[in-house]
């Protein structure tokens, strides 16, 4: 399934040319819908202000095959663009992410409205290959590009009262047709405890597969929290708020007995809709065992020491 693998210490120009090569090949092979989509939204113009091609590859290697870029960009849950898996690809191609602003508020020393590039620019963009586990019991392995969330949050100087971080997605039903139907409470809201948000794994992601974040995957910036179910990794972020109280989250409002605030990947906690014991890796037929914290137990288990994870699911 793997199209290309990143190597450490690879020259930037090499990556770029390989990416272009891949794009061209994909365009020629698939043609049709995907080809048209790429033509309408070439990665070079999608968000020119973020110099993705300058990122420093700092690969956290994972001994698992990458999910194909095609699968990861055509099979998406992004209800703002429709509830079907291919709706986000079809309905997000004209989504305008230029001059993206993020409002920072709440318990911090540096509230205000920031241009995305100003938030990201001071830091190196890193590549992180993470497992992504959806609550619907499927999973992928995706090479993300981004900045550690901790770097961004520290630069905003949270006060001692900042116990949680709340995030919001853009609310714009004209651009996001899925918001015209009230399948969820809009705008989409998510939240993390501040120590979760500061964990070195948590990523403020601006790209994947060596390119700018595709619209259907949460352009221009999304969270990636690899030890939690995918819906915690909120997309198209326009608001970061430091709070003292635990913030509300969209899926918890929709189904309080199904989607808890923590929503850590946990094969032991039964879910009324999908057994969480196993998962289907996209590209495979049979299911494999799901691991505690999605295999990131060593990195994050200490965050939940002494907590009853059945109660705080």
């Amino acid at each position, binding site marked *: 399934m793997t199209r290309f693998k990143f190597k450490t210490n690879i020259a930037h120009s090499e990556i770029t040319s390989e990416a272009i090569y891949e794009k061209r090949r994909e365009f020629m092979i698939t043609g049709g819908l995907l080809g048209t989509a790429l033509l309408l939204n070439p990665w070079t113009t999608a968000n020119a202000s973020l110099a993705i091609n300058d990122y420093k590859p700092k690969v956290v290697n994972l001994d698992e095959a990458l999910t194909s870029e095609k*699968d990861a960009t055509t099979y998406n849950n992004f*209800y703002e663009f429709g509830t079907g898996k291919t709706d986000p690809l079809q309905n997000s191609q004209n989504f305008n992410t230029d001059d993206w602003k993020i409002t920072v508020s709440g318990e911090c020393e540096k509230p205000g409205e920031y241009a995305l590039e100003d938030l990201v620019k001071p830091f190196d963009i890193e590549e992180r290959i993470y497992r992504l586990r959806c609550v619907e019991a499927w999973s992928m392995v995706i090479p993300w590009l981004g900045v550690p969330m901790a770097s961004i949050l520290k630069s905003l100087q949270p006060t001692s009262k900042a116990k949680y971080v709340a995030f919001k997605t853009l609310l714009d039903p004209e651009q996001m047709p899925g918001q015209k139907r009230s*399948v969820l409470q809009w705008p989409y809201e998510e939240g993390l405890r501040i120590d979760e948000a500061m964990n070195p794994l948590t990523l403020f992601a601006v790209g994947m597969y060596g390119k700018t974040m595709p619209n259907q995957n949460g352009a221009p910036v999304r969270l990636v929290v690899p030890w939690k179910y995918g819906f915690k990794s909120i997309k198209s972020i326009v608001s970061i708020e430091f709070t003292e109280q635990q913030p509300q989250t969209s899926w918890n409002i929709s189904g309080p007995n199904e989607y808890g605030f923590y929503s850590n990947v946990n094969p032991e906690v039964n879910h009324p*809709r999908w057994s969480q014991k196993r998962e289907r890796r*996209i*590209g495979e037929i049979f299911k494999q065992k799901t691991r505690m914290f999605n295999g990131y137990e060593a990195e994050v288990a200490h965050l939940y020491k002494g907590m009853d994870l059945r109660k705080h699911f």
Partner: protein
Amino acid sequence: MQLSDVLKSAAAKPVVFMLCLLPLFSLVWNAFYGDLGANPVEAITHETGEWALRFLLITLAISPLRQWFGLAAIMRFRRMLGLYVFFYACCHFMIWLVADHSFDIADMFEDIIDRPYITLGFSALVLLIPLAITSNQGMVRQLGRRWKKLHQLTYLVTILAILHFIWLVKADYLEASIYAVIAIGLLLQRTHIKKWIFTKAPV
């Protein structure tokens, strides 16, 4: 030529038989050419389940269609359509048993018990078994009036199948609701159901 003549013609049955297999052919074709998207197992599971439900609703529509349009000839397709409900429900079940549970029966039953929507879906499939077994002419004759009573289980299967669908929906109820409205409409065409609701149901 009148519609009823077409329905009565010798070619009608084989043609309908082949038409009913089209959804399966289309799935096999698309699976072979990799056109089922990133999660083909999920696509096959959903498609076969939806086709089982569609054939169930088509089967339920046969009697009302006969009444409304005086199309007595349409009755000759009902058994075949009913058996296609069972066929697609079996495909739906088998792909789930094989791909989701790797043939592990204990694991499968755990899922049936733990997840109410699967409990309902599995019950619907089990209830279809006696209906499929007693669908041949010999059984119809042998069971007489009891055959009709037995096959009214279809109504219960319909309710279970609709609930199975609604219960698995995560947030977007639109599609499941459309099926539910059609199913309720078709069930309310049955005089005994209408009578039961309007005379026995507590107000």
